């Protein structure tokens, strides 16, 4: 079933967020792989913020993603 544009916006927001703060690789990697990577990164994020770890974009996860925050990644390597 096609996702609504609101759901699409949520996915875009999450992708941007996870790329910036959780080192999710950008670019096309095949549909299946992208969603696996995203789910893994969502889990990392949920664990950090002590949310329920589901790997899914639920309301609580999106709420944190929408909050104003510092731009330093939560998990990045610094060289």
């Amino acid at each position, binding site marked *: 079933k096609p996702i609504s544009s609101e759901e699409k916006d949520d996915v875009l927001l999450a992708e941007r967020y996870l790329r910036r703060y959780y080192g999710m690789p950008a670019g096309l990697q095949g549909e299946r792989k992208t969603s696996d990577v995203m789910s893994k990164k969502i889990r990392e994020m949920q664990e950090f913020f002590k949310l329920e770890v589901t790997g899914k974009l639920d309301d*609580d996860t999106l709420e944190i993603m929408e909050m*104003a*925050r*510092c*731009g330093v990644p939560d998990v990045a390597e*610094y060289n």
Partner: protein
Amino acid sequence: HFPRDLKWKTTDVTFRILNYTPDLKKADVDRAVRNAFNVWSRVTPLKFKKLYEGNADIMISFGAREHGDFNPFDGPEGLLAHAYPPGNGIGGDTHFDEDETWTKDFHAFNLFLVAAHEFGHALGMAHSSDPGSLMYPVYTYGKGYPLAEDDIKGIQSLYGENPNHGKVNPKPDAPSKCDPELSFDAVTELRGETIIFKDRFYWRLHAQMPEPEQNLIKNTWPEIPNKVDAAYENPEKDFVIIFSGIKMWALNGYNLVDGYPKYIHKLGLPKTVRKIDAAVNIRDTGKTLLFVDEEYWSYDEQTGTMDSGYPRSIEENFPGIGDEVDAAAYHYGYLYFYHDHLQFEYSFASRKVMRIMRANSILGC
């Protein structure tokens, strides 16, 4: 900390403000920056010297979108600022998003608080997952000295303690739900969820969430004080009343109701009452019990008046629970009284204590 515990090799760290935001007077920016450095110098041997030209360790600037480090900002809200861990060149540099509105008060976003957080990075601190710490990545406004125990432990493990400064009064760490000595400030239902207040935080229990969720009170309700004394839900009228000192606030769902705060004396309590310890609505009778020190009052939700014949002694009317309570809840004919680290299950019908449990058994501990 950042990987490899990056830190400055010297305790004398220099900074320079390269440009200013038009949102504030120059002097206010200078003050916010200086105060933000003082937050960290109070608890470490670090000294911060301002430079007016040349290269400083921490170069501070305001910029919008792409601002010279290939790490662009995103317009208003969202990203507020970023800083680089200690090192040469860009290391330590701190950038604020000029598309934000910078303030010196509670309006979004307070420059001092954001600067103090970013300077934490510039000194080697990574993000903390403690929602009460300054290094938590999400912005929250709060008054007073902004460091929590977690922040102080982190910075002192890099640089040591301040030999010339007495003990500071840090914000305590977020309470740990399975601490055997854990006590509660207040417990209430909220549309089927359970909300448990403790210090600056609350836990939210939801039937569909396996783990309790811990949040800062200020994060959800900036208007409510950091310390909640008591709370109860009136499910008939669909509101939750939150008490702090002599004032009370009303919630409808998670939203604050207009017209509050009101004084608790509006309920009919005498002026000598300055704080309510616990409150609970008995669904079956429509009465709300208000516990103050060793006594309790009964408030009739239908008539909006205090019942006569009160206050009564807690110890005499609820035998077995002691003479004071911290928090109270009501489920299916049972009253649950919380005092210190204990929870008393009291049968309203048979007028006796049925079980004694640890307070935090409600949190799954």
